[in-house]
């Protein structure tokens, strides 16, 4: 069974059909790229999948359950996490607090045990603290744990955002232009990180990207959209030679 399926999903803002007839199926442990020219509707699709926008037509199924109509936080609880095109960290909090907030659903203690500092508080906080440090360790960031997120260099901020998304224990990770603003060296590192994440956390990744080296290098399958419609699906090789895709990118 596919992890995520969409059936004829679309959204219209007033008279403008931003996305239409969007049908995809993502299998487990796949790495799929979503590409298209600027303004094609890629981020809108992410917003539809994560519940930020409600589709005006069609159905979205995640792990067999229908998820349209659910709030973003509920969908995160079901196992879908995302990052943002323009990094959205909790800038004035420490790196470790950023991660701890994402561990929210693992903490169960009540407000009362927090205020009275009962054993439940100490235990659970300790567990989450250790988990957060371990997670940062996987990305070689444990030394930055107590720095403010805004003081990290750009590449690390990107990494931290992925880290934070992973802390929610997702089955499906949506990455919105993870390589935006990175130099070739950083992009190469990022490619390694993404591969590493998929293999270590056993998850499906759907990513939006403009950097074709990255996309062609690591994606197993590509979905190309233009003006909110899917114009091609297939392996990177097929997409490279697809006439419609070349036309969309270069004009006729």
């Amino acid at each position, binding site marked *: 069974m596919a992890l995520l399926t969409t059936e004829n999903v679309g959204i219209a803002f007033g008279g403008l059909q931003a996305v239409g007839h969007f049908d995809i199926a993502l299998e487990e442990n796949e790495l799929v790229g979503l590409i298209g020219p600027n303004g094609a509707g890629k981020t809108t699709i992410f917003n539809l999948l994560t519940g930020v926008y409600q589709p005006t037509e069609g159905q979205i199924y995640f792990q067999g359950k229908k998820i349209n109509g659910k709030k973003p936080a509920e969908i995160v609880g079901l196992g879908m996490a995302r990052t943002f095109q323009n990094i*959205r960290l909790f800038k004035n909090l420490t790196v470790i607090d950023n991660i701890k*907030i994402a561990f929210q659903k693992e903490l169960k203690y009540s407000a009362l045990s927090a205020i009275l*500092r009962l054993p439940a508080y100490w235990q659970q906080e300790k567990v989450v603290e250790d988990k957060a440090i371990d997670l940062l360790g996987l990305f070689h960031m444990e030394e930055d744990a107590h720095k403010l997120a805004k003081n990290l260099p750009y590449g690390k901020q990107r990494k931290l955002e992925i880290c934070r998304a992973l802390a929610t224990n997702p089955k499906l990770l949506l990455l919105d232009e993870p390589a935006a603003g990175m130099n070739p060296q950083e992009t190469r590192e990022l490619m390694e990180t993404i591969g590493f994440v998929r293999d270590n956390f056993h998850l499906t990744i759907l990513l939006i990207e403009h950097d074709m080296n990255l996309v062609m290098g690591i994606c197993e399958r590509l979905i190309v959209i233009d003006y909110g419609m899917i114009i091609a699906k297939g392996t990177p090789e097929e997409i490279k030679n697809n006439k419609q895709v070349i036309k969309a990118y270069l004009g006729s």
Partner: protein
Amino acid sequence: MERKNFQKNYLINFIAVLFLFGIIVMSLQMKLINNYYQGLLIIAGINIMAASSLNLAAGYMGQLALGHAGFMAIGAYTAALIGLHTNLPVMAKLIVGIGCGGVMAGLFGVLIGIPALRLRGDYLGIVTLGFGEIIRIALYNLPFTGGAAGLKKIPKLINLPILFVILVLVISFLFLFVRSRHGRALLSIKEDEIAAESVGVPTIYYKVYGFAVSAFLAGVAGGCLAYFQRALDPNKFKFMLSVEFFIIVVLGGMGSFTGTILAGLFLAFINEFLYEVDELRLVIYAVLLIVVMIFKPSGLLGNREFSLTASGRWLKRKLTEKK
């Protein structure tokens, strides 16, 4: 930092507070503080309490709430009515009255919060301001609030030591609350609501939750006011009172409870000298705010807290450096 370290810090702070409490009781015994100054300190304490509660909503959660005088009024009237119409022993009356005042204000916080917190920034400010005024006008017209004349002969249950204990409880509650998963959720909302939602923080739930806790504590402050002043009328809870709390929060630093305490004491102190120029007071506040905004926009302490143990360590380091 390990659990033991925290517990050591809690102990040090507890001893410091106990020491301060001892000083207050002693100086009252030895008549070092006369009734007039005791009154001033009590009012300062009540203002600090209300401003701290506002700091939770405005400083920690980043929501511009301008109706805290309204929540304070609800707490005050509830406590006053319980004080007037029940026959409980003094201590029980104090606890029940202030507790009920807080709970009632908290309930109104939920009721107002659910629709209002869908708005952001200035719009939320306008709506909470409106609700604050609605509460005040309602108090004028309800049958059991005594209208414009207000309530009189409320039993006097608050003195300086009791208020000090309540204030310590409120501030400790806030400190411990914000350093928990709930507090982190509130902070994440202030930092970036969309990101908070995207990592699984149910933002609407937490906004209402934080707002209700904030209203509850404002209600507690109101209850203290009722049991101290013995007379209430709706005019005490005008919009300008909410603004005063806001000024204290901004002066002390959004997100710093120790900053709120310092700013509250400072304002109480300068108010003493501004008594003669009554109307000009607000102008001077405004000038003060402008000066702070220019020279230290984050307020006295920014979002840091004054910590006894940290300053102890600092002092130690300075002393060893000298040697």
